[in-house]
C-alpha cells in the first residue's frame, strides 16, 4: 500500500513536471466561519494539494465570513482579482445567491476553476413519521400544504428550500408558497429538532446528517441524485419513485477575474491531478461527497447554466421578482 501511494505520488509529480507546472504557494479563502462546508473544502483540498506536492508548503486557509460568501466575493473582485495564488471555495449555495442578486456582481467577474465533488440532497423524516415515501409526502402537501412543517439549514429561498420545492413541484403541489419552512443553523440541528417533534421534515445535504442515517433515527424518503449513491445504495432516489428531480450541492473553486490564462490553466491542471489522486477519491467518499469532475471551460459553462436555472426557479417560487 505504501509503495502504491509512493508510486502514485511519483506519478503525480511526474504529471506535474510533464505539464511544466511550477508548484506555487497558495492561499484558499473559505468565505465562512471555521467548521462549515466551505471551510472544510478549503482545509481538505489544501491539505491534499500540499500532501501531493502540487503546491509549495502548506496552503494557507483564510476564513472570510459574511453574506453567504458575498464579502469574500467583493473582496476578491476589488482587491485580489489578479492574484494567481488564490483559490476561493464555493458551491451550489454560492451560485444560488448570485442568481438571486445577493452578490455584488455577476459570475463573469470571476474565473471558475473546477468542481471536485458534490454532496447529495436528501429529504428525511423522523423514524416514527407516518410518511413512508415521496408519494405520501406529495399527497399530504396536496391535501394541506401546512400539514408538514419542513426545515433545513438554509433560509427561505436558499438551496435546501428550493430543492424541496422542486420535488413538491414535480409532484404537482401547487400552493408552494404555503408550505412552512424553518431555518436552522445546519443539517444536524434540524434533524435533532425533528427527532424532538418540532418539525416534520428535513431537507439538507446527506453529508451533514450521515450519522443519523446510519443510526436509523431518521427515514430517508428520497436522495436527490441520478443514481443510488455508493455509500448508501439502499436509499431510494426521487427518480426511482417517479419524480425527475436532482439536487446536488457541488464543491469547487473560483479565482479572480484578472488571473492570466496560463495561471488559470495551471490551476485547473493541478486540481485535475488532485481529483484523480487516490487520496481525494478516499477523502471525498469519507465525507459523503460523490466525486464529480468539471473543470475549466466546461465548469464555467456549467456555472452559467446553473445560475440561469436557479434564477428561473427562484422566480417561479416567488423568491425574486
Amino acid at each position, binding site marked *: 500500500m505504501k509503495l502504491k501511494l509512493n508510486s502514485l505520488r511519483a506519478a503525480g509529480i511526474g504529471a506535474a513536471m510533464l505539464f511544466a507546472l511550477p508548484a506555487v504557494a497558495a492561499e484558499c479563502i473559505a468565505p465562512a*466561519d*471555521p*467548521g*462549515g462546508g466551505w*471551510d*472544510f473544502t478549503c*482545509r*481538505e483540498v489544501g*491539505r491534499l494539494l500540499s500532501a501531493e506536492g502540487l503546491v509549495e508548503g*502548506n496552503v494557507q*486557509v*483564510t*476564513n*472570510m*465570513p*459574511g*453574506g*453567504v460568501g*458575498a*464579502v469574500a466575493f*467583493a*473582496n476578491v473582485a476589488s482587491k485580489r482579482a489578479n492574484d494567481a495564488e488564490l483559490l476561493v471555495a464555493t458551491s451550489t449555495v454560492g451560485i444560488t445567491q448570485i442568481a*438571486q442578486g*445577493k452578490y*455584488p456582481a455577476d459570475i463573469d467577474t470571476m474565473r471558475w476553476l473546477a468542481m471536485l465533488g458534490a454532496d447529495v440532497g436528501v429529504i428525511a423524516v423522523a423514524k416514527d413519521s407516518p410518511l413512508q415515501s415521496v408519494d405520501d409526502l406529495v399527497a399530504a402537501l396536496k391535501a394541506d400544504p*401546512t400539514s408538514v*412543517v419542513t426545515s433545513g439549514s438554509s*433560509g*427561505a*429561498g*436558499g438551496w435546501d428550500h428550493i430543492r424541496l420545492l422542486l420535488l413538491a413541484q414535480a409532484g404537482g403541489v401547487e400552493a408552494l408558497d404555503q408550505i*412552512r*419552512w*424553518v*431555518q*436552522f*443553523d*445546519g443539517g*444536524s*440541528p434540524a434533524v*435533532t*429538532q425533528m*427527532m*424532538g*417533534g*418540532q*418539525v416534520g421534515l428535513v431537507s439538507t445535504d446527506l453529508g451533514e446528517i*450521515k*450519522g*443519523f442515517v*446510519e*443510526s436509523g*433515527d431518521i427515514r430517508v424518503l428520497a436522495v436527490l441524485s441520478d443514481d443510488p449513491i455508493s455509500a448508501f445504495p439502499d436509499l431510494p432516489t426521487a427518480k426511482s419513485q417517479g419524480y425527475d428531480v436532482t439536487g446536488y450541492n457541488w464543491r469547487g473553486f473560483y479565482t479572480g477575474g484578472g488571473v492570466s490564462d496560463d495561471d488559470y490553466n495551471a490551476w485547473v491542471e493541478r486540481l485535475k491531478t488532485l481529483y484523480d489522486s487516490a487520496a481525494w477519491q478516499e*477523502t471525498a467518499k*469519507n*465525507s459523503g461527497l460523490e466525486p464529480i469532475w468539471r473543470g475549466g471551460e466546461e465548469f464555467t459553462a456549467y456555472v452559467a447554466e446553473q445560475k440561469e436555472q436557479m434564477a428561473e426557479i427562484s422566480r417561479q417560487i416567488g423568491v425574486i421578482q
Partner: protein
Amino acid sequence: MDILTQLWNGFAVAALPINLALIVAGCFAGTLIGALPGLGPVNGVAILIPLTFAFGLDATSSMILLSAVYYGCMYGGRISAILLNIPGDEPAIMTTLDGYPMAKKGQAADALAISGVASFIGATLATIGLTLFAPLLAKAAIYFGPSDYFALYVMAFATIGGISGTDPRKTLLAALLGLMLGTVGLDPSTGVARYTFGSFNLYDGFDPIVALVGLFAISEILFFLEEKAHGGGLVPPGRVFPRLTRVKEGLGASLRGSLIGFIAGILPGAGASLGAVMSYSFEKRISDKEGTFGTGDPRGVAAPEAGNNAASGGALIPMLTLGVPGSGTTAVMLAMLISLNIQPGPLLFERSPDLVWGLVAALYLANFVLLILNLPLIGMFTRVLGMPAWGLMPLVVAISYLGVYAITHAAFDLMVMVGFGILGFVLRKLDFSLVPVVLGLLLGMDMENNLRRALSISGGDFMVLVQSPIALVIYALTAAFLLLSLWLSRRQNGIVPQPPQH
C-alpha cells in the same frame, strides 16, 4: 459499572506520553489565546487544525489537543477581564463586573485565584456530568424546541435588569441598544438585508466579539487617555500572591454557578455566555444581601467563571452524543473529526469508544493541568499591572487590532471596533454599564432566530410561544424569580445605587 471500566480505558489512552504532552501544550496555548482580546476558542482551535495534520496526529490525539485548548481558553478569558477590564472572549464579560473592581482594590491576585478555582470546579463538575449522564441528557435536550429556547432568552433578559450596579432603567436601555444593534445584517430566516445600507460588510451584522473588544478595550484606552490628562493612575498591582481565605468565599457560588452553566451548555446554541449570565444574575439575587456585588465581591467572580467553564463542558454532550455543535468551537471540532474519517453522530460512543473515553479522561487531566498551570502564573499575570502605562496601553491596542483582524481578515471590522470603542466611551460617560449592550447583541440574535423559527412552525400564530410545557415552566420560574427579587428589594428598602465602575 460499565462507565467506570470505559473511563479507566480512557485514562489509559489519555495517559500516553504523547497525549499528556498535548494536554499540557494545549492548556498553555489555550490560556494565552483566551487571554488575548479578540482571539477566542473558535480561532484558537481553527489555528491548531493544520498543526494536527502536520504532526500526523490520530483522531484521538487531535481531539485531546483541541479540547485542551478549548478548556484553556475558558480559563484564559478571565485574566484580561480581571486585570484590564477587557474580556478575552464573550463568556468572560460577566467576570469584569466584580473581577475588575477587585483588581482596582489591589486584590487582582485574589480575583485570579478565586476565578481559577471556580473554573476548575465548574469544568470538573461538568466533566463528571458528561461522564455519567451524557446519553440521557442528550435525549432530554432534543425536546427543547424553538419556543422553549425563546422562553430561556426571555428569562435571561428579564433577569439582567439587576446585574450591574447602576440604575436598572439604564441597564435595560443598554440592553435595548444591544438588541437594536443585533438586528443589523441578513435576516436569517428570509435572507432580507436589514440596516446594511448596501454594504456587504454588514451582511452578517456586528460580530459580538468585535463589538466586545471595541466596547471594552478601546473605550478603556480612551478613558485612560482622559484620566492621564487629569493625572489619574493605573490599577495598583497589589499583592502578588493570593490568600486562601478569599478563595473559600467563592466556593458556594462556584457550585451553584456550575449547575446553571452546565444546563445552559447542554442546550445546543445557548452556550457559555448564557451560562455565565444566568449564573451571575442568580448568584447576585440570592447572595447579594449587603449590595456588594459589582464592587468586587468574590462570589461575583466565582459564579460566572464556574458557569462558563461548566457550560463548555456541557456543550461537549450534544457534540459527542448527537454530532450537533453546541457552539462555534464544537462545530470546528466536529469538522475536524469528519476530515479524520470519523463520522460524528448518535453512533460515536459505540463505534469509537477509545476516542470518546480518551477525550473524557483527557478533560479530567486538562482540568488539573490548568489549575496547576494557572495558580503559579498568577504572580506573573499580576506583574502585567506593574508595567508602565506607556508600554501596556499600546500593547493592548495592538493586540486588539490583531485579534479582530484575525477573525474576519477585513479592515472594515477594525473600523467597526473603533466605532464601538467610541460608543463605549460615551456610554460609560453617561453611567451606562456596557455588559448589557454586549448581552443584547449576543443573546438577542439567538433570541430572534428562535422566535422566528417558532413562528415559522406555527405559521405566524403567537400562541405557539406558550403552548409548550417546557416554555411554561421557564416563564413560571422567571415570574417567581422577579417576584422574589421585588420582595427582597422591598425588604432591603430599595437598592442602594452603586458608584459607576470606571
